C-alpha cells in the first residue's frame, strides 16, 4: 500500500525484431576493430574481384582490385604495398597450401605466381587464350600443381615449377568463371561455367573428360567444396545449390533467398564460446543485392543475414574464425574481426598462480590484537546449506524523484532539465501536470532556470514524440513569462531560436500537407480498382 512509484518515461515501441539469436550475435560480433584507425574500411576505386586467405597462421589475406593484388597483414589488417605487375585487371587469386606462394590470374590469360612474403614475381603461366577468372592451388599437400579456368572455356592443370600445362581439361562450352579444389584430394577439382554446368574433374582420369557433370540451370558464378569433400555448393542466378558429389551428383537443397545474382561463396565457421555445441560449418554467400547470408547446411536453414550498402562481389573467412572480409563492386572492403579472447585466458592463468600463493602453509592464526582479525571472513562464500539473510535492497531514487516526493516541484523540474535527457524531462513534466503544478513551476522559475527551460523547449518542442506537450507548454511559457523574457537579452535570444525552429517546422508541415494532397487522390483511385 505504501509504495512509491518513480517517474518513468513513456514506453517506446519495441522493434518487431526478435532478440538476436546466439548465431546472429556471433556474426554481428565481426566488427571493424576500434584500434585500427582505417575506418570505415579499406577502399579502392575498383571492384574487388577475389579474396583469398592464407591457409597458414597468421592467415594473411589477399584481395585483387584493378591490375594489382594487395596482401593484408592479419594482425594489423593493414595492406602491404600492392603487387602491380599485371598488364590487365587481376581476376582470381589463390594461396598455396603452405601459404608461401600466391597465384593470380588476370584478364590477359596469364597466371602469375608470387612469393607471398617478398612479393617477388616467380613464374608466369601462359596458355589461356582469354581472361583467367579462376585460379586454385590444391588444398591438401600438393605444392607443385595449379588449376586455372579461363574465358576460353578450358580448365588447365599446370606444373608450376616448369611453367607447363600438364592437362587441358575440356568439356565446358562457355566461360569458366569459378572453380575449387577438393579439401581432401589433390587431384579433384570442380569448375563452374556460364554454360550452367558444373564439372568435377579428376586429373588421374583426365582423358575421359569430367568425372561428373551437374546442371545448375543458371550461369555458375561460384563453386566451393564443403569441408567433407563429399558435398559441393554452387552459386548462380539468385540461388545456391548443394550437391552430393559422392552420391552421384544428387541435388540436396536449393537455397533461394537472395534477390539478385549470388556472386561468391565461402566457408564459414561458428565457434561457440561456451562450447555447449560443437563448431558448426556454414556457407557464407554474398550477392549483388548487398546481402550476406549465412546458411547452415546441416539444418538447411538460413541462420543470419546481413545487409551492406553496395553490391557484393567476393567474400572470405579466415580459417581461425577471427576475420571476415567482403569485397564490393565499388572497391570497398568490409573487414570484420572478432575480439580475441586472449585476455581472459591470461586472467585465468593469474588466478591459478594466486591460488597457489593462497594455499601456502604456515599462515598465522589471527588474534584479536591484529586488525585483520576484525576483517576476517568478509569474502567468505556461502556454502550449500547456509541460510542466507539478505540485506534489503536499497531503492535508488533519482534526484527529481526525491524532490517530487518532498513536493519541491520547481526544483524537481530544474533537476530533470539539468539531466538533459528529454524523455525524463517530459516524464517529470507529465507528472507535474498530473499534480496540477506545472504552470506554477513555470511561473516560479528564476531567470537562469527559465533560460534552461527555453533552451530545452527550443531543442525538443518540434520533435514529434514530445511535440504534443511541449509546443503547448512553449506557448504557455511565452505567454506567462513575457515580461521576464523581454527584460533579458539572453532569453530573447532563446525566443528567437525557438521562433526560427517553429517556423521551420511549420514549413515542413506545410510541405508534408502538400505531398499528402498529391498522394491521397492517387490512393483513392488505387483503392477503387
Amino acid at each position: 500500500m505504501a509504495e512509491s512509484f518513480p517517474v518513468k518515461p513513456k514506453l517506446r515501441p519495441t522493434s518487431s525484431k526478435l532478440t538476436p539469436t546466439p548465431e546472429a550475435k556471433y556474426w554481428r560480433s565481426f566488427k571493424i576493430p576500434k584500434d585500427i584507425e582505417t575506418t570505415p574500411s579499406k577502399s579502392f576505386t575498383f571492384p574487388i574481384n577475389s579474396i583469398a586467405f592464407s591457409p597458414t597462421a597468421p592467415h594473411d589475406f589477399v584481395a585483387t582490385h584493378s591490375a594489382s593484388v594487395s596482401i593484408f597483414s592479419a594482425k594489423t589488417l593493414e595492406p602491404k604495398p600492392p603487387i602491380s605487375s599485371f598488364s590487365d585487371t587481376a581476376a582470381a587469386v589463390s594461396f598455396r597450401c603452405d601459404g608461401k606462394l600466391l597465384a593470380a590470374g588476370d584478364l590477359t590469360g596469364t597466371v602469375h605466381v608470387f612469393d607471398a612474403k617478398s612479393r617477388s614475381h616467380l613464374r608466369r603461366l601462359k596458355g589461356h587464350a582469354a581472361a583467367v577468372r579462376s585460379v586454385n592451388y590444391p588444398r591438401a599437400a600438393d605444392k607443385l600443381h595449379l588449376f586455372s579456368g579461363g574465358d576460353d572455356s578450358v580448365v588447365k592443370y599446370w606444373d608450376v615449377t616448369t611453367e607447363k600445362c600438364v592437362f587441358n581439361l575440356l568439356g565446358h562450352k562457355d566461360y569458366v568463371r569459378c572453380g575449387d579444389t577438393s579439401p581432401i584430394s589433390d587431384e579433384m577439382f570442380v569448375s563452374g561455367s556460364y554454360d550452367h554446368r558444373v564439372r568435377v574433374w579428376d586429373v588421374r582420369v583426365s582423358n575421359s573428360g569430367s568425372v561428373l557433370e551437374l546442371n545448375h540451370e543458371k550461369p555458375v558464378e561460384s563453386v566451393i567444396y564443403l569441408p567433407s569433400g563429399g558435398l559441393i555448393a554452387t552459386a548462380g542466378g539468385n540461388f545456391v545449390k548443394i550437391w552430393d558429389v559422392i552420391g552421384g551428383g544428387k541435388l540436396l537443397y536449393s537455397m533461394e533467398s537472395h534477390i539478385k545474382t549470388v556472386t561468391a561463396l565461402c566457408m564459414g565457421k561458428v565457434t561457440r564460446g561456451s562450447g555447449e555445441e560443437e563448431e558448426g560449418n556454414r556457407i557464407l554467400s554474398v550477392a549483388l543485392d548487398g546481402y550476406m547470408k549465412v546458411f547452415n547446411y546441416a539444418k538447411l536453414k538460413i541462420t543470419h543475414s546481413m545487409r551492406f550498402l553496395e553490391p557484393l562481389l567476393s567474400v572470405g573467412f579466415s580459417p581461425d574464425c577471427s576475420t571476415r572480409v567482403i569485397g564490393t563492386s565499388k572497391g570497398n572492403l568490409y573487414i570484420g574481426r572478432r575480439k580475441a579472447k586472449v585476455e581472459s585466458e591470461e586472467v585465468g592463468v593469474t588466478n591459478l598462480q594466486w591460488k597457489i600463493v593462497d594455499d601456502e602453509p604456515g599462515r598465522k592464526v589471527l588474534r584479536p590484537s591484529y586488525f585483520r582479525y576484525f576483517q576476517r571472513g568478509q569474502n567468505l562464500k556461502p556454502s550449500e546449506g547456509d541460510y542466507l539473510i539478505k540485506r534489503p535492497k536499497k531503492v535508488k531514487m533519482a534526484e527529481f524523484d526525491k524532490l517530487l516526493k518532498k513536493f519541491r516541484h520547481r526544483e524537481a523540474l530544474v533537476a530533470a532539465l539539468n539531466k538533459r535527457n528529454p524523455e525524463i524531462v517530459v516524464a517529470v513534466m507529465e507528472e507535474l501536470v498530473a499534480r496540477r503544478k506545472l504552470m506554477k513551476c513555470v511561473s516560479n522559475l528564476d531567470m537562469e532556470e527559465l533560460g534552461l527551460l527555453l533552451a530545452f523547449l527550443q531543442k525538443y518542442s518540434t520533435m514529434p514524440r514530445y511535440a504534443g506537450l511541449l509546443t503547448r507548454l512553449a506557448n504557455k511559457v511565452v505567454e506567462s513569462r513575457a515580461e521576464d523574457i523581454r527584460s533579458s537579452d539572453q532569453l530573447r535570444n532563446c525566443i528567437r531560436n525557438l521562433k526560427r525552429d517553429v517556423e521551420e517546422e511549420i514549413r515542413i508541415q506545410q510541405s508534408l500537407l502538400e505531398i499528402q494532397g498529391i498522394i491521397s487522390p492517387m490512393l483513392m483511385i488505387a483503392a477503387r480498382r
Partner: protein
Amino acid sequence: MFTGGKSFVSLPPAFSNDAKRLLVCTGNTVSIFSTSTGLQTCELEGHEAQVTSVIVVPATNPTSKVLCYCWTSSLDGKIRYWDFAAPELMKTIDIRFRIHSMVIPSLLHPRNDSTGKLPDLYAYISTEDVKQEGKPSSFGIQKCNLTKSRIVGGVTLAETRKPGHVTISPSGKYIGTCEKRKLRIWEIPAKDSEHVGYKKVRLHHTRSITTMAFHPTERVVAAGDVTGRILLWRGVGRETFSNSKSSNGRMNTDGEDRPGVRDTDDADSCTTWHWHSSEVNVLFFSSDGAYLYSGGKEGVLVVWQLDTGKKKFLPRIGSPLLYFINSPDPTLSSISCADNQIQLLRMPSMEILRSISGIKLPSSHMDMYEGFGSVVVFNPTAGLIAVPAENYRVQFYSLFDDREISQVQICERNHQPGDEITVKVNLVALSRDGSTMCTVETRLPEEGIGSLVTLKFWVCGSQKKQVSLSTVIYEPHRDAEISCIAFRPTGNMAVSSSHGGDFKVWVHRHELTPKDETVQRSGWKCHAVGSYKKKPMSTAAFSSDGSVLAVAADKVITLWDPDRNTLLAVIGDSLEPITNLTFIGKSEYLVSASASRGSKSSNPQLTVWSMSKLCVAWSYRLDIEAITCSMDDSTFAVLARSKPNGSADESSQHAEDMILLFNAEKAVPLSVWFVSKAQGGGLSFVSSDEDKVSGTKATDEVLAYINGAREYVLLNPHSEQDISRQRGFTNLDDTDTHGYASVYGELPEFSLKADQTAFPSMPSGKTWKGIFSGPSHALPPLPKLCSDFLESLLERRSGVVE
C-alpha cells in the same frame, strides 16, 4: 434473494472477546469474519432493515472469554440478542421506534452484586419516532430495559433534530452525543435502575463537532470538528459529577484557571490540536489512555501522545478513515476505510496485517467529468465483476462468493484521498472468456496542456490472480477520448471507438520465436481504422459469431466487416445519440438505446432492429441505463430509469427504476422487477454455477443487477422461484490450529535418511522483535507471549512450516 456487495463500513465493527472474530454490520445482516484469514465465517440474519449497532457482551472473567453473545439494533425497531458462535438468535425486543444507535453501559462495569441476583440491563438508544406523513419525525435518546424488554417510560435524555450517534466511555460511566456545535455528556449511575436522575454536562465549541471520544480512566473528552481540529477537555464535569450539591451556575468562571474552556462549560481546561486539514472522523483513546488515535479524510492515522502532543503517523492508507477500534487482544486493531475496506493492524508497530474488502464504492468526483462512465464490468462466464476504483486499481469481485478476488494496479500512481482527480481509470473491458482485460486511463490536462489517453491491454491468468500488462498504447485516438471498448466474442480482436470520430480495430498477434527458444512475444496491434462522416462514435458491439461489427456513429448505426474493414450497411436514424448497442444472443436482432447522456433528454428510445431486414422491429420510449443479452437465446434485459414525471402506471414510489426482461421477437416484457438507485448501475446475465446457486439448472443464466451504490442482487429470469444462496463459509477452526501445531506447525514425516543431512536452521529473530516493540506498559497478555517466546527459542524447520 441473493444479494451482496453490502457496505462494510456503514458502522464501526466489533471484535469478539477472543479477538478471533470481527462482527461487521452489512446491511440487514451482521457478517462475522475471521481475523486470522480475513474470510467470512458466518452471518447473523434476522433484521429486516439496516443494522445500526452491534455490541459484543464483554467477558467479565477469563473463563467467559469463549462466550460469544452480542446485542444488535436495527432500523426496523428491534433489538436482538445473539449467540454468534452458533449462530443463533436468543431474544428479540420490539421497540417500535427506528433505532439509530444503541449503547449498553452496564455491560462494561462488572456487576458485583452480593445478592447474586442480576440487576436489570439497561440500554440507551437513539430513536426516531416516525409520525404521520408530512411531519418531521422526532429524535431522542431513550432508555430501554433489556431484561424486561420494554422502554423505560418518561426517561428521554435528549430531544434532537437529527439522529445522533451515542458514544460510550470505555468504563461505561458516561455516555455522550455530539450535536452540531456542542457535546452532551451524561453520567450513568453505578446502580442503574428505572428511576434515577442523570447529571449532565454540555461542552460548547465554535464549529460543528463530528466525532467524540472518552478517555478510559480519566475525565478527559476529545472531540473532532469539521475543520480538522481536535479539542481535548480535561477534568470534564469536575463540578457536576463529583460534587452533586454545587450547581452549574456557581461555577468558577475565571478564564485564567480554565484555559480554553468556553463560558460556563464544566471542564478544567481545553486544548486544541490541529493537524488534520479537513474533518476528523476517527477519535479513539488507547486502552491505557496514553495515546489518542485520530484520522480523517487524508487517510492518515495519527497517534497523539496525550501528555506531550507528540505525533506518530501511519500514512498512505489510501482512503478516508471512518472508524478505529481496538480488540481485547492488544496486538490487534482495525480501521474502517471509506473505500469499503477494513484493515486489520498489528498494534504497536501499526503494520497492516490483512484487509477485508467489499466492492469499491464509486468515487464522489466521478460525476464531475462528462464521459467518465466508470461503470462496473461483468465477466459473465466466471461470475466476476471488475470495478474501477479511485486508487487507480481495478478490483475483481466474485458475485457468487461475495468477496474480493484481487486488485490490479492500472497506473503507477499513489492515490491520495481528497486530492483533485487528475488521472482516472475510466474504462474497463473484459473479453468474454476473461483472458484479456482492456483499460483506458485519462490524464486530465492542466490549463489545456498535458492530457493523455492511454489504452492498455492486460493478460489475465487463471482466476484473475495474476494479471500482467501486455500492450500500452498512448493516445490511441489522438487526443480524443475513448467511448467504448468491445471484444470480439470469438477472440483475438477488440474495437475501440472514440468521440473523435473514428474507431480502431485491434488484433492480438503472437510472435513465436524459433522453437528452441521459449520467449514468446505477443501484443495488440492496430488492424484497421474506420470512420463514418466524422461523426463521434459512441459505442460499438460485435455480433455473437464475430462476423459483424456495429458501431454507433452519433444517431445512426454503422455495420462493418471487422476483418476486411468494409462498411456493410448503415441503419437507423434515432432522435438522440445512441448510447448503448448490443447484439441479442444468436438471434438476428440488434438492440440499441439512445439518449443524450447527462441531461434529461426528451426523446430516449429503446429500439430493436432486425438484422435480416435492416429495419426497426419494435421500439419503446424508455430511458435506458444498461442493456444485457443472454448468450444463447433471444432474451435480453434492460435497466430502465423512469423519469419523475413519468406516467402513473409505474406505480410504486420508492422503486422508480425497473428491470425489464424481453424476448426480442415480442414487444411485451416477460418480467419486470422494480429496483432503486439505478443511476450508474449495471446489468448482466451471468452463467450460474450449480454448486453455489441452488434453484437454477447448471445451464441457466441468472441476471445480476448492481446498483449505483454498488450493491448487487442476482435474479432468476426464467421462473418465479428465488435464488437462494448456499454460501460456502470457511470454517474458522480449519485455519486455526491449537497447541503444539499452532506453534511449531505439523510434525514432519519422520525418516532416518533425513536425519543424516545437515540440519538447516534459521534464527527466528523476528518474533523477539515482534514481542517487545512498542511501549513497555502495553505488553501483550501472558498466554500470547508464552507461545511466542517458546517459538523464538526453538529453531524452526524451514521445509515444514508453510
